[in-house]
Structures are given as C-alpha cells and as structure tokens.
C-alpha cells in the first residue's frame, strides 16, 4: 500500500520536518527545534499540528441522530447543536473499534472525527449500521489543523478567525466548508480547524506569521497527549479493550450504561456487573529510564500483573511517564510495581492521570 501524503506536505518540507510513517501517512515527526522544544512551546505558547491524517465524516439526514445513537454509546438526540462529545465505536463485545468526537451542527447534521488508522473500518461500520435509515455518510477531504496552547485563541484572532465565543468541546462552522472546534489532544486550551485544501496554505501561513506559533510534529503530539493522560487508539485502546477497563466510562452517560441500545451495550452491562479484570492507570518510573509500550508489569513476587501500553518521557514534568493496564488489585495510586525492560526490573508506581493538569477553557 502506498503512503498517503498530507496536502500541506511541501510546507512541512520547507519547515525542515523529519518524516515518518504513521497509520499509512507520511507525517512530520519533528521539526528542527526538536521534540523537547516543540512540546514545551505548545504548553507555553501555541503549537500548530497538521492532523489531516484524521478523517472527518459528515453524517446528515433525518435519522442521523438515531444512527449515531445506535453506533456509539451516545444520546445524539439530546446533544445540543454546537456541542461536541468524546465517544466510542464499540463492537458487539464492547471492544473499542475507535474513539471519536461527534459534534452536532444542526437538527439533522453531525460531524464525526475519527482516527487515521481506523477511518476505513469506522466508515464500513457506520455504513452497516446506517443500512435502511435516512442518513448520508460522507468522508470529507479537508486539511485539518490543530492549534494548541495558551496563545491559540489570540493567534487565530490575528489570522482573521475569531473563535473566542467557543468553550471547550463546542464547535462552529466559521466559513463555508470550514469546521472549527475548541478541542484538542494535548491537555491545553486550543482549537481543531478543518478547512478546504485550497484555502489551507494561506491560512497556515497567517498562523505561522505570528511568532508565538510554530509547527509541532507527531513526536511531541504523542508526548503531550501522554502527559495529559489521553489514550492513543492502537496502543491504550483496542478492539480487545472495553470502556470499563480503559477507564473511560466518563465518556458514557450513566443512563446509557444502564439501558442504552447501542452496539455493545449488552456486553458492556455484563462487564460492568462483573467488574473489569484489568484497568488502565498512569505509571511513573522511579528513575530516569523510560519504560516503553509492551513492557510487562510485575509485582514484588515477580508475577506479571499488567503491561505498559504507552511510555516515554514527559518534557514538562521532566521525568519518564507511562500508561498501562494492571489487575484491579494493583490499580490504586501509589502501588509499587516493576517494569521488565531488557532483562532488568525497573521500579515504578501507579500514578494518577493526567501527569500535567488539563487547561481547557470551560465556559
């Protein structure tokens, strides 16, 4: 399969990006500043991310809300226009096919943002559920940019886009075929903006003309989301993992957990009744050595009690950080554990999430 290219690839080349493949896309991993500076810059000022690998779906029609409420543990009929919701696509076993953001744009119009690697699978899943309903699902061709950090609102204003009325997890369509949400995946205040390909370069240039903004690569996107305690599908979330184990039940309204008719609802009720066997936790290695995804977690007796699903270094917290799944009995904050790394046992402990406080603009 040939690599997919971002519409703004030339801009990234000009900025000196180092590229790598992620979910089939040729993505900028770092720019000359390097992951450490890019990460810290985002928390301090404003980082511009090209997230065009992610897929936007327009879901429209009389039955749009009904179809979304069937596909996701989400009461789409009750979602107010202009509001976004983090939700999931579950299989019949309540395994997580993908995590999504669904935004209502009007009585019969929704925008769904899906992960790059899962977009085809998601689309097929949505289409199967939509069979026989009055709904149209369209995969949109857009450039998708995220501007994250405390200066994001002000930088956008300077670029001619006033989104100051938005609060965290609300969205609007500021121009024809544009979509803008106050959301992101760094733990910072910020925006995600989808726009037509032909308008994207000049818009990005306007943003970058502000010295507070700079391109940030995928490497820092990963360290930022990990510090913020946010899950990456394919690592911390997967079809073999249910929402209770993933500790993201907050994304599922309580009433729906009890009587929702979404795909996977029955399996989820069984899991909730029995209690999940393993649960996702934050992990803080004691020393300087990072612990990576795939490492086994053991207790003092050397018994395997879990595994690391994301791990690296947190430039803002200045120590290694990780997330993983551990048996319920070992999930309490402070529980001492060990990670098996290249034959040695590195001490770490269960840590609360996030590692860096979220700084969202909540109304």
């Amino acid at each position: 399969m040939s690599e997919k290219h971002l519409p703004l690839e030339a801009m990234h080349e000009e900025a000196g990006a180092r590229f790598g493949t992620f979910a089939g896309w040729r993505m900028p991993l770092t720019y000359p500043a390097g992951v450490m500076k890019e990460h810290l810059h985002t928390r301090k000022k404003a980082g511009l991310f090209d997230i065009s690998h992610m897929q936007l779906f327009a879901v429209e029609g009389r039955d749009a809300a009904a179809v979304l409420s069937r596909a996701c543990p989400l009461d789409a009929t009750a979602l107010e226009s202009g509001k976004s919701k983090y939700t999931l696509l579950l299989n019949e076993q309540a395994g997580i096919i993908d995590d999504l953001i669904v935004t209502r744009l009007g009585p019969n119009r929704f925008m769904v943002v899906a992960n790059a690697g899962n977009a085809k699978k998601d689309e097929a899943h949505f289409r199967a559920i939509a069979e026989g309903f009055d709904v149209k699902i369209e995969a949109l061709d857009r450039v998708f940019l995220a501007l994250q950090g405390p200066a994001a609102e002000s930088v956008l204003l300077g670029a001619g886009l006033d989104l100051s009325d938005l609060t965290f997890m609300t969205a609007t369509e500021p121009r024809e075929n544009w979509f803008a949400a106050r959301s992101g995946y760094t733990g910072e205040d910020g925006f995600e903006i989808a726009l037509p390909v032909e308008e994207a370069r000049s818009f990005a240039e306007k943003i970058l003309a502000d010295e507070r903004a700079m391109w940030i690569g995928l490497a820092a996107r990963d360290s930022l989301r990990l510090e913020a305690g946010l899950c990456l599908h394919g690592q911390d979330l997967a079809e073999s993992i249910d929402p209770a184990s993933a500790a993201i039940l907050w994304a599922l309204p309580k009433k729906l957990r009890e009587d929702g008719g979404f795909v996977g609802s029955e399996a989820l009720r069984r899991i909730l009744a029995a209690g999940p066997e393993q649960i996702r936790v934050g992990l803080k290695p004691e020393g300087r050595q990072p612990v990576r995804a795939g490492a086994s977690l053991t207790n003092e007796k050397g018994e395997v009690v879990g595994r690391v699903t994301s791990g690296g270094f947190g430039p803002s917290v200045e120590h290694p950080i990780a997330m993983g799944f551990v048996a319920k009995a070992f999930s309490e904050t402070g529980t001492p554990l060990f990670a098996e790394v290249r034959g040695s046992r590195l001490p770490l402990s269960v840590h609360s999430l996030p590692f860096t406080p979220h700084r969202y603009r909540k109304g």
Partner: protein
Amino acid sequence: MSKTYFTPDHEWIRVEGGAATVGITDYAQEQLGDLVFVELPQAGKALKKGDAAVVVESVKAASDVYAPADGEVTEVNEALSSDPALVNNAAMGDGWLWKMTLSDESQLEGLMDEAAYKATIA
C-alpha cells in the same frame, strides 16, 4: 595521534595507542532527536563486535548502539546519567559513550574514514 573510524550503524570509534573511545555520530543524534536516557554498560564488560553495548533513549524510542570492535569496556561517560542531552549537543566530543580496549585492531580496517562515512549520509 588519534584516528577516528565510522561504522555503517553511525557509531564512531577514536583510537589512540591501543585504546578506543566510542560514540554515535552527529547524524545519528539528529535522527534520534532529544535523548532523555542513556543505558551504559559496566566497566569490565567484554564486548564482541556487533554487540548492543549501549541503549540510547529519545523521548519516543529506544535504540541500540553497537560495539564497533571486540574488547573490554574500561570507562563509561558518567556525565550522561545526569545530562543525556550531551550526546545531542556534542556527539563527537563530550557526548562520547564508553572507552574500551581493542582485542583485534585489524577489525578497524573494515570501517570507514570520515570522508567515506560522510558520503554514505549525503
């Protein structure tokens, strides 16, 4: 008079009077990005050419550094425990990784000189 050799895996080895200092090249540190941890061997450890002797860890990933020749570790760069970024800032100098004896200097003959190495990364 010292002489520096380069491996296709982007290590350098500087040889002076039968002893050698090993590090990664500036190109390698650039590819790896900001280093946050360097796992060093113990002094006294016997190395065979091609052994993973050191692990350098960037924010995102861990990478092996291979022994360019047979020999024994005599010293490691302790400064890297508190400041792994030395490798980024001075890969060919203060960011050296370990010093070693050489059991078979003829192994160096298969390595590249600076000009040949530069041609491979150009």
